[in-house]
């Protein structure tokens, strides 16, 4: 029964109710800044815990990118794009030019998750099997695959891996990052989303 009613509510979370006024405000800017801060902490600690440098594997930062984008729309996407600059520098994972080249991947890793949830009307509280599928397929696997595709291209472009190593690096990166994204991201969506959607910072559209 619970599942049925939940299925019925899936996707309605994104609908702006009649009379509901939503506009970008200071709270969104603040939340973006706080999320960059969280990303710096999570990203740096993740990189220092498993210090394999510029190659991303078992990096929990992707979960922050995806979940932040789902909760806070474009503000979360922007936060996810920029926090790796600082976390990479602090952990010594990647120099600034490499971090800059990762920018499109960081954009994709957040954007794909939120776009999938909004377009496919998934509920970020992960109430139904459908919500889980959207999350795992787009928020975790596809997002990490596309991010890794770009990331490994950047690495070979900078000469940090050989061209022949791109495929194994791509697979290692995709699945290596998917594990923490899946565990960490799922827990955040499941347990923190109910709090987030009650807050003023939650974004139903793209900016508010």
């Amino acid at each position: 029964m619970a599942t049925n009613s939940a299925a019925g509510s899936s996707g309605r979370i994104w609908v702006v109710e009649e009379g509901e006024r939503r506009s970008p405000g200071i709270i969104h800017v603040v939340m973006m800044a706080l999320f960059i801060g969280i990303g710096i902490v999570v990203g740096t600690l993740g990189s220092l815990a498993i210090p394999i440098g510029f190659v991303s594997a078992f990096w929990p930062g992707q979960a922050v990118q995806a979940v932040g984008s789902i909760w806070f729309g474009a503000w979360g996407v922007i936060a996810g794009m920029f926090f790796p600059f600082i976390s990479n520098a602090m952990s010594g994972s990647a120099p600034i030019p490499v971090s800059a080249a990762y920018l499109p991947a960081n954009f994709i890793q957040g954007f794909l998750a939120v776009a999938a949830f909004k377009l496919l009307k998934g509920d970020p509280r992960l109430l139904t099997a459908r919500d889980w599928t959207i999350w795992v397929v787009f928020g975790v696997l596809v997002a990490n695959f596309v991010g890794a595709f770009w990331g490994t291209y950047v690495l070979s472009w900078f000469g940090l891996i050989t061209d022949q190593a791109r495929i194994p690096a791509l697979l290692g990166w995709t699945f290596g990052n998917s594990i923490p994204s899946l565990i960490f991201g799922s827990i955040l969506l499941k347990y923190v989303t109910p709090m987030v959607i009650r807050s003023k910072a939650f974004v139903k559209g793209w900016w508010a």
Partner: protein
Amino acid sequence: MARSEFAKKTLLGIVPADSPFYAFHPVTRLAFLFVLSVTPMFIDRPEINLAIIAMTFGLFWWGRVRMSDLKKYRLLLVTVALFMFIVAYLAPGDKAQLTPVRLVGLTLYWEPMRWAFVSYVRLMAMLFGAILYFSTNRERDVLVGLRTLRLPFQVSYVAGLSLRSAGMFMEDFATIREAEQARALDLDALSLREKVKLYTMYTVPLFAVALRRADEISAALYARGYTLSGRPGTGGKRTDYLRDKSVLRVRDWVVSFGLLGTFVVIAIVSRTTGVFSIQASPLIGFVEQLLGIG
């Protein structure tokens, strides 16, 4: 007196309480960051990048950075090197076109190994440039530097708030960990699965705290008259008091232009001549001779 007694903790790490770097305007220090972390991209010759690393370490010393604080990067240096050389060994490329070398019972291919070495040295040169910057600049210096480059106030303000919130979350994280340890939690005794679970459970309250803080901070910003546009109540241009307090002196102009000029020259020479190429490297040539290649 030991250097450590003069260190100051910042959100980004530890900086010396006093350093010759502080005599320079923050924007000049940004020029240091830019040049040190981007120049190696134009240089393949490892001995030049090694010289840049040596120079960076000289700057660490000159800047009175506590060298023991750099120890945390040791493991990273080793793992990155291992990763790069293992990748070059396992996935060398088209073997028919490569030069095999027998070394300690293994068949390696010289070109990918050489490239891994060259790239590793370059990467380290770039990384230590960034580490030097964060070891000699407080968050305020970063912001003043960015604002001097006319970055919009809102952007630099978000950057400052982000750094501040990173510090807050690190403190929260440390508090939660201390509380766990006070309750006799032995991290070493935990399995990897348990550690992952624990790490995740640490972070859920951090997110909950973030939501509360977002409300508090936005209320505080409203209370002090901040608007989304960042424009002042008078409608004119916003005064940037801190930026205006830092004055660019002659030495800042000289050093900044000197650094950027050097960078431009290196970039042009790199693109137009082979001076910085691997082929011009005596070090690589020496190793090739040693291995009987070429």
